[in-house]
Structure formats: structure tokens, C-alpha cells
């Protein structure tokens, strides 16, 4: 027992030295990321190629905020990347990020997708759309989130957990548009229309439509692109082929843009922020600038099927084929404010149970 223990000790000590962020030629930047490494890798590799700045990363879905907070001014993290608006506003509320005044970021990112004082910046948006079966759902049968709660969809709706950040965010946008009471009534009615207990991710809902478990589902737009072009798992192409994508709550005759029904489709954003403790502040800002620039925005659009925040960047042809849509114009900080209220509504209507 004794000898292996020594070897193991040596190995672990060796390991502990290895991953220490080494300063490459152009320096480095340290990321805490809520986005999966395999999504970010092509972008970060391109950044390193272009600038010589090495990117180090820790990915976790939970706990990064608490770790950053505990590490305080000595935290090695220079920037945080997140997959939704909620985490960004949490960071602001905890006082863990610092303002950035960058002409490049201001030019690249529309005002509604960044914090007014530069505390966070949106990098891509994704629409929370409705997927509808091509044959079982008549054209025009569903055109708003409100429709999904209508009795004619009883037993025909699928969605992932009501407690998932994407659904919480959608419900929060509903509160921002129509108030808490109306939002609760909607959530309750939607719950009673569910074909099955909320489960699985957004792709699983499309699969369920193809398999005939339900007719309509809520999901994020980019999943459609990922399924429709999935050469590694061709069966997913069949799932995608079974549904059409509907951008809910578009303004039209009898439903003007100012009306709540024509408020636009709910969008969420992925984004980034520079930490208060950043030792490599300039590199962190350069990274955000790079991610919001033409080159990176194109990769986001082409590989992840997300909507670039920078105007003029072409969409993936498939995404473009879904047509343009009006996004809900409410500022996302407003939506983030109602997250807790939305989570409580999900409890009150027992959405998942």
C-alpha cells in the first residue's frame, strides 16, 4: 500500500502543477463558463490564433458565481460566459462584475442586448419558439404563446421542465408583458394542456411530436438547426422534418405591435461579463470584442444556429429560411427581474407534477 501511495502523491502533485494557467506569448485570459466547452472551443481557438492570447476555462452549470464571490479580489477569473440572461443579472446583483467602456462593444451590440453601464454584454440571441406537427396542426391554429393554453390544445402540448431556465425566462417575459396574475393563469392553463409530465430537453420535445406523443411544443430555435443538419445522428433529421417552426406573438392585422399579443417572440441571450477581480482585464475585453465581432458572430450563426447580436452578420441559410421575426422588445433586465416570481408561479401551478 505504501509505495503506490507515494507514486500517486507524486502524480497528483505533478497534475496540480500542469494546469496552472501558463502565460503564452500574448498573455492569457481566464474564463468561468456556464456554456459547454465544446460549444465555445472553435471560437476560443480562433481567438488564440488571432491574438496569441491563451484562453483557460472552467465550465460548470452551477456554483461558479459562489466560487467567484468566495475567491474575492484574488479570483483568477477575468471573465464569465453565460447561457442566459439570468446568470448575467445575478453577477451584477452580487457585485462581481465591472463596467467596461468599449467603443467596439458598443458598436457591435445593440443597446437592448447589453447593460447600460457595460456590466454585461449579450453575444447571441435565441428565440423561444413553438414547434408544431406539420400535419396534425392546421396552419394558423397556433400563433401565440397564449394559444398553447387554449382548451383546443388539451393533451397536445409538450415541454421540458417548467423549472428550466428557458421556461422560467419565458414565464418571466409573460409577467413583464401582462402582469403576474395573467402569467399565473396562463401557466395553469398551459399545465392542464400538457400531454405528459414535463421532461427531457428541447430536442426530446420535437422527437415526441414526431412519435405522436404530442402536437405542439416549446423549444429554443437553435435546436431545430442542430437536429435538421445532424449527419452523425440522422434520425434527428426525421424529428426535425416532422415539425414546422412558429415564431409566436407576431404583430399582424388586428394584433398591432403595441398590443400584448403582438409583443414579439421571447428571446433569451448568451453573454459575457468582465469580473471585478480581473487581472487580465484588457485581454478579457479583447475576448468579448472578438466574440461580438464579425468573424466570431458568423461562427455562432453557422455552427450553433444562434442569432448574432451584431447586425449585418449573415444567418445560417437554414435559420434564414425560417424567416424574420419580431423579438419581444422588453429589455431583458426587466425579464430577469421577474425570474423568482416566475419560479414561484411554477410551484403554485404545480407545473412539473
Amino acid at each position: 500500500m505504501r509505495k503506490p501511495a507515494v507514486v500517486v502523491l507524486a502524480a497528483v502533485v505533478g497534475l496540480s502543477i500542469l494546469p496552472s494557467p501558463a502565460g503564452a506569448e500574448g498573455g492569457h485570459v481566464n474564463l468561468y463558463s456556464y456554456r459547454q466547452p465544446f460549444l465555445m472551443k472553435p471560437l476560443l481557438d480562433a481567438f488564440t490564433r488571432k491574438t496569441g492570447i491563451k484562453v483557460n476555462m472552467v465550465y460548470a452549470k452551477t456554483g461558479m458565481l459562489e466560487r467567484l464571490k468566495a475567491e474575492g479580489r484574488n479570483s483568477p477569473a477575468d471573465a464569465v460566459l453565460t447561457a442566459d440572461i439570468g446568470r448575467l443579472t445575478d453577477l451584477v446583483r452580487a457585485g462581481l462584475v465591472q463596467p467596461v467602456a468599449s467603443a467596439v462593444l458598443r458598436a457591435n451590440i445593440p443597446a437592448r442586448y447589453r447593460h447600460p453601464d457595460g456590466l454585461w454584454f449579450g453575444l447571441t440571441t435565441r428565440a423561444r419558439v413553438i414547434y408544431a406537427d406539420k400535419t396534425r396542426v392546421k396552419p394558423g391554429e397556433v400563433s401565440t404563446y397564449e394559444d398553447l393554453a387554449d382548451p383546443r390544445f388539451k393533451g397536445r402540448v409538450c415541454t421540458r421542465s417548467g423549472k428550466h431556465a428557458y421556461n422560467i425566462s419565458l414565464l418571466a417575459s409573460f409577467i413583464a408583458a401582462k402582469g403576474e396574475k395573467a402569467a399565473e393563469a396562463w401557466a395553469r392553463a398551459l399545465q392542464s394542456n400538457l400531454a405528459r409530465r414535463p421532461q427531457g430537453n428541447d430536442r426530446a420535445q420535437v422527437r415526441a411530436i414526431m412519435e405522436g406523443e404530442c402536437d405542439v411544443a416549446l423549444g429554443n430555435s437553435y435546436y431545430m438547426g442542430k437536429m435538421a443538419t445532424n449527419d452523425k445522428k440522422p434520425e434527428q433529421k426525421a424529428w426535425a422534418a416532422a415539425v414546422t417552426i412558429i415564431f409566436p406573438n407576431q404583430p399582424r392585422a388586428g394584433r398591432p405591435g403595441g398590443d400584448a399579443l403582438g409583443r414579439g417572440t421571447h428571446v433569451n441571450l448568451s453573454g459575457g461579463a468582465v469580473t471585478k477581480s480581473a487581472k487580465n482585464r484588457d485581454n478579457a475585453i479583447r475576448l468579448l470584442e472578438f466574440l461580438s465581432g464579425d468573424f466570431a458572430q458568423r461562427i455562432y450563426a453557422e455552427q450553433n444556429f444562434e442569432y448574432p447580436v451584431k447586425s449585418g452578420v449573415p444567418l445560417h441559410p437554414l435559420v434564414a429560411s425560417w424567416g424574420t421575426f419580431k423579438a419581444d422588445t422588453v429589455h431583458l433586465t426587466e425579464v430577469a427581474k421577474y425570474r423568482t416570481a416566475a419560479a414561484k408561479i411554477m410551484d403554485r401551478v404545480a407545473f412539473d407534477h
Partner: protein
Amino acid sequence: MGLVGTRFGGGAGTFRRIDGWTLGTVLVALAASIPIFAVIGLALTPGESVWGHLASTVLPLYIRTTLLLMAGVGLGTLVIGAGTAWLVTMCRFPGRRIFEWALLLPMAIPAYVVAYVYTDLLEYAGPVQGALRASLGWTTKGDYWFPEIRSLGGAIAVMTLAFYPYVYLLSRVAFLEQSVCVFEVSRTLGHGPWRSAFRIALPLARPALVIGLSLVLMETLNDFGTVDYFAVATFTAGIFDVWLNMNSVSGAAQLASVLLLFVLVVVYLERRGRRGRRYHHTSTRYRALPGYPLRGGSAALASLACLAPVVLGFAVPAGVLGRYALTHYADTLEADFLTYTANSLGLSSMAAVITVAVGIFMAYGARLRGGPVVTAATRFASLGYAVPGAVLAIGVVLPTAWLDNTVDAVLDSVFGISTGLLLSGSVFVIIIGYVVRFLALSFGTIEASLSKVTASMDGAARTLGAGPAATLRRVHLPVMRGSVLTAAILVFVDCMKELPMTVILRPFDFHTLATFVHQYASDELLAESSLAALTIVASGILPVVLLSRTIGRSRPGHTGAPDGAGATP
């Protein structure tokens, strides 16, 4: 450590002297409890209370679901674990020698992976229901009934399959350590195998069964991966909901603390229930166990009973992973598996060695100086296992980062040197986390083993002039060799599978096999994660087989070959 113990010398009514063992044991236990204290401290920080909302909505559901889950998993693992352990230890039937080790295999597969695999197979869109629909002409959901895998029942089934090896392992060790005399007496009284099991073997094995069961239940309580995937509203799911969706980490810590209180009460009640009883025996006759030969139908049933958990808990999940790995291995081939595997193995072995050392020290200290303070401190220290990993990780981050920042501030103001963060974000913190999280495994296993060594052994050694440390080294450790190795392997295998703490505590660009699985599995990309998941399973198999062999030999005065009926003392 050389002070004479008070247990044997202290008079009634006098204050016990605080000696090295008492102090050492309490200090080690307190150090291991720091992260738990940090969680409780977090619970006490002011914040908007979530209790009013929870109590009026989902709290009753959380409690009901959690209790049902615990009851189901507890009963399931007890029946399967103790049942199969009894069969392979005491009965003779075809395949027994293989089942001895094969029954441990499900331990190598993380519960969340089992959950993913069975959902993939059994959901409406999966191959099983698809085949049923195709062959029987059903077309829609309404045409037939099929159990819903993503449900409380599904969670109970998955966790039972993933966790029963704990009970199997500990009860098998206990059955092996039982003297043949008690069974001979039992047979003389006309008891068959069933009555012997229920009247003699099970009651005698109670400490081991209770520890196995409590490990299972704590693991059930701390699980988030499975209940999240199945959307089962347990207390732990509630902790994460409050933390992430209601943005209240103090509220989450409050729920976690209530969970701890609940575990403490249950542990206390069980202890009180067997206060004053002793579970060792004085006979030294360890002739090979009798081995009731089973024939015909009962032999086939026994084989089947042992085969089912192995197939469902191991063969099916490993098979599905293997199939995916074959078709999708190219997707993740560029990943540096060698490094991830080395990281996993290095961290897990290191953590296993330390955790077992701490476990031995605490268990022996508690035996030596069984006062209320020592007992309470050691029990409390092993509660980390009941806390959800991600919450405990925050409990580790808080004190280590505080220590780092304090050292930095002091050195900076005195010498003008900034040390930055020394511990936080290093692999050492991951090891600290593992030790705190899995201390219950080593402490429990070793305590169970110690409880079966009669106190007269200590007395004899001490009479012969050996101090407590020498007694431990020369008497207890040799006797407990099997249990010590069992503890080490339990901790090792659990560290290999550990996810939530590693994810939060790790340094930049640091991957273990489990964190690599996680980045895909968290998005339900089972195929992409299959190769790494399979590597975890493969790395777990060897230690598990090794473990089984060790246990087979652990029977005192017995040198393996459990079939060799002729072995005499």
C-alpha cells in the same frame, strides 16, 4: 498518544482527562466538518425567506416524495443487497462463484448514467416501446399502458440498481465474519436456511446492514443528477430550485441544513435502538461456512435472483454505452482521454488513501474514547455524504478561499508579498472535497468492522503492554484488513464517479472522466459521452473484482476457496 486511556481507568463521577486520542479525534472530526459548518453558516446569512412560499406550495410534496424515495430505495437495496449476499455466502447453487464478484459490478456505473440509459431504452420514443408498437399494432399513447420511466418509481428502480452493492458488500462481509458455531446451534434447533437467516444472521449483521443502508439513503438524499433528469420533486431538487431559480443560496443552504438535521435524528434513533447490545461473538471457530446446497427449482431461483441485478444494473447499461461508443467514438476521439483517466485515477487513489486514514483514526478514537463529545463529533463529520455535492462544494470553497485570502492579506501587509489563492482552484481542494464527502464510506465501514472486535482483545493487548497505537497497528489493523481495503475501494470508486464537486472545485482546463461525461450528458448527448462513461466503468471493474477476492479471503482463519468444505481451524 501514549497516555493511559480513561475508558479502562477513569473512575465514575470524575471528569475524563483530555488526552491525545480524545483531542486528536475531536480535532480531526471538526476539521472534516468545516465544510458542513460553512453550509450551516450560509443558511444563517440573512436573505429573503423562501419558507413561506415553499410551505404553501411544494414543500409537502418534496417531503412526501423524498420519504417515498428513501423507503423504496431502502427496501429495494436491503432485499437485493442482503438477499443476494446471504445466497452467495450461505448457499451453494450454479454460478455462485461468479455472482460473488459480479454482484458488485453495478457500483462502477454512476446512477445518473443508469438513468440516462434506461430513459433512452424505455421512454415512449425508445426502442422498447417502439418495438411493442410495431409488433402489436398500437399506434398512439392511448392504445396501451407502459410504466413511465421518468417518475418516482423509475427513480427508485434506478437508484436501487445503482446503490444495492453497498448493502451487498457490507452484509457479505458481516455474514463471512459470523462464526459457524451460531449456525450449528441454529441447525441443532431445527432451523433451516430461511429461519437461520432471519433469526441469526440478519440480527447479528445489524450494524453492517444499518451502515450499508445509511450509506444508500445518504446517497439517495444527495443525488441530484437522477432526480433532476426524471423531474422527481425531492427535497434535493428543491434545494437546487431555490438556489438557481429563486436565486437564494442561503435558502438552499437552509433546506440542506434541514436535511442534515433529519439525517442526524434518524442516525440517533437507530443508535438508541441498539444501545447496550453487542454484536460480536466469542467463539473462535471459523470453519468454512456450512453452505446449504440448493437443488432444482430453488437453485434456479437463486441463480436468477443473483443474475437479475447484475444484468439490469450492469450488463444493460454497459451494453448500451458500449454500442454508442462503437458508433460514435469518432466524435470525441480528439479528447485527451489518457490525461483525463490519469487525473481520475490519481485524484481517486489519493483521496481513497487519505479518507481511509482519517476514517481509521476517527473510528478507533471513537472506540477508544467513546464519550458523547467524541461520538457526536465523529458522527457529525461523516454527514457530508448526505449533502448534495454542489452544495457541499460551496461549503468547501468558502473556508478555503477565506484561508487563501487571509494568508494573502497578512503576508501582503507584513512582507509585501501577495500569494494569491494557494488552495482554491487547485487539485488539493478537490481532494479535500472528496475526503469530506466520502468520509462516511470509510468511517462507516471501519466502524462496523471494529464493532465486531470484542473489547477483551483490546484488554489483552493492553495487558501485554501495548499502547493504543500499537494495539491498533498490531491487533486491529490485521484483523480489519479486509474492511480497510473495502473502505478504500468504496471511496475510490465513488471518487471516480464524483461529479458535482469536481466540476465546481477544479482548476482551469482540468478534466476528469466524470466531468468530460458531464459536458455532454448535461445536454442529454448520451452517445458523445459514452466513451468516457465506459472508461469510468472499466476503471471501476478491476478494483471491484479485487475487492470481492479480498472479502472472500477475509474470513478469519480462512484462506480463500470458500467452496473447500474441508477447511478446519
